[in-house]
């Protein structure tokens, strides 16, 4: 983790933020500063507002209170400096799109114009990004025919090819097997070590990323806790958050939460099929 000093601009600064849908408050009074190179895991049961938190950072969800600053700008104003890794989802097999095209869109897909200049430099950057995630072998194949793990490797390259200051990950490990979960987490960790990219990692399952996590933001029932995994992931803190007796067990370097599952369905892989923009319109 990069040293925290006053002259380094934080990657994300959240002040007094709150989000409510009608009478239902997802969270309020949220203050958070994420430094460059920090790895923050955003945890919580379904419907606790984890994804809405990411949307607020991307400027796709207005806050009910407070302010957010990300990559030195207001949300939605600096999205070019933000890398985004979505959860893996099925891609149509016949879609005319190869891995190189997917990654290329991460580099300049947001730009206007046909992009006919600088093709050689573009190709080099894309192939370097693909090389860095070890996806060169299948990068020219149709993405719809790749495995979930292969697709997510390309997603990492897509998010990193534009040299983002902040990396937002929305359940990127969901539906991957353990080996791929580890590989993808390691790729993300490598990046923040080497380039000081801040990582905000939304997940329902902390264990695959536990070795890399600096701090946890745990959202439950309109409440939240921020702190090191050891501080937040305890029987005492989580029982307080959930408002019911929750047992936190540490086994072989992993954290298991007993009791929360039955009450709030945590840990149950949920494919949120809603699109990221759905709540905007």
């Amino acid at each position: 983790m990069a040293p925290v000093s006053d002259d380094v601009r934080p990657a994300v600064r959240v002040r007094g933020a709150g989000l409510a849908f009608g009478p239902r408050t997802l969270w309020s009074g949220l203050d958070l500063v994420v430094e460059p190179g920090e790895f923050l895991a955003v945890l919580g049961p379904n419907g606790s507002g984890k994804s809405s938190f990411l949307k607020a950072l991307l400027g796709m969800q207005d806050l009910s209170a407070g302010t957010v600053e990300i990559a030195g700008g207001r949300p939605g104003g600096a999205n070019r400096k933000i890398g985004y890794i979505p959860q893996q989802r099925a891609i149509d097999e016949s879609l005319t799109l190869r891995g190189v095209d997917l990654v290329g869109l991460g580099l300049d897909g947001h730009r206007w114009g046909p992009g006919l200049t600088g093709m050689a430099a573009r190709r080099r950057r894309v192939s370097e990004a693909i090389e860095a995630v070890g996806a060169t072998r299948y990068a020219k194949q149709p993405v719809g025919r790749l495995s979930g793990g292969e697709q997510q490797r390309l997603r990492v390259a897509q998010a990193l090819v534009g040299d983002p200051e902040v990396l937002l990950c929305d359940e990127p490990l969901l539906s991957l097997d353990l080996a791929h979960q580890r590989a993808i987490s390691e790729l993300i960790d490598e990046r923040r070590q080497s380039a000081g990219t801040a990582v905000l990692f939304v997940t329902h399952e902390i264990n695959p990323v536990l070795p890399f996590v600096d701090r946890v933001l745990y959202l439950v029932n309109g409440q939240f806790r921020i702190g090191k995994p050891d501080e937040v992931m305890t029987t005492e803190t989580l029982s307080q958050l959930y408002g019911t007796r929750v047992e936190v067990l540490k086994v072989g370097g992993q954290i298991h939460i007993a009791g929360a599952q039955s009450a709030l369905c945590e840990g149950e892989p949920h494919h949120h099929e809603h699109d990221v923009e759905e709540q905007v319109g």
Partner: protein
Amino acid sequence: MDLFDFGKTWELITELEGVQTALLAAAILGLVAGVLGPLIVMRRMSFAVHGTSELAFTGGAAALLLGIGVEYGALIGAVVAALLLGILGARDADRDSVIGVILSFGLGMGVLFLSFYKGRSGNKFGILTGQIITIDSTNLTLFVVSSVVVLAVLALVYRPLLFASVDRNVAVARGVPVKTLTVVFALLVGVSTALSVKVVGSLLVVALMVTPAAAAARVTASPWKATVLSVVFAEVSAIGGIVLSLAPGLPVSAFVTAISFLIYVVCRVLAWQRDRRTRVRSVDPAPDLVAAA
């Protein structure tokens, strides 16, 4: 060989100015339809294109009744339809049914307008199946200007539009205005559909706007190669269709649709053979056919 008399065909091409104008219009249309096609296929808009062309028919029929140029009516009908489909059918779940509802209503209105029209019946039939030979220098100008505008706008929005079409969620996260682009693309499709109506008629627009791109998608996974192939296929269909129709004096649209269908079938067979080969060789996903060739 009576059906394809090449001497007669050549004579008609070189001597009739109308035929040359038609070939020029077909070449322009092949380019526009070929470039838009892959995006239409990626966005699963084949049915929307068909719906749009049916409303181009409604607009054309209304124009015929009112005594103004059919192409203006078709243009207005297609643009209104494309906007309706773009706005009302923005949600995936609704889209299919919204298109069906608008398409059938528009077609019914078109039939009503035609029944009031007391002019030449060839004009009526022409809106449905095309009448490219009637393109003259005035509407060729409209044709060229519309095509240039469509291609220029497309060049400007191409990358964000591709991003929004194939990877919507990430495009949204990266700040691409996907909703605005949906409307822009609907407008481009509307204008191009109106152009196609003149050549192949509103019933058969899909043969030029969708079939070539669908064929290309079978043999390559690269968006660029798919666009190039789609243009080539659309050109071969449009120009080839006109040329082949000359000697026998049969409808242009029959030949255009037959050629584009044949290309599609050939591409499917090629893809099927490639998939079979690669499945025998390894369990790896199939490589890009065009890159391998």
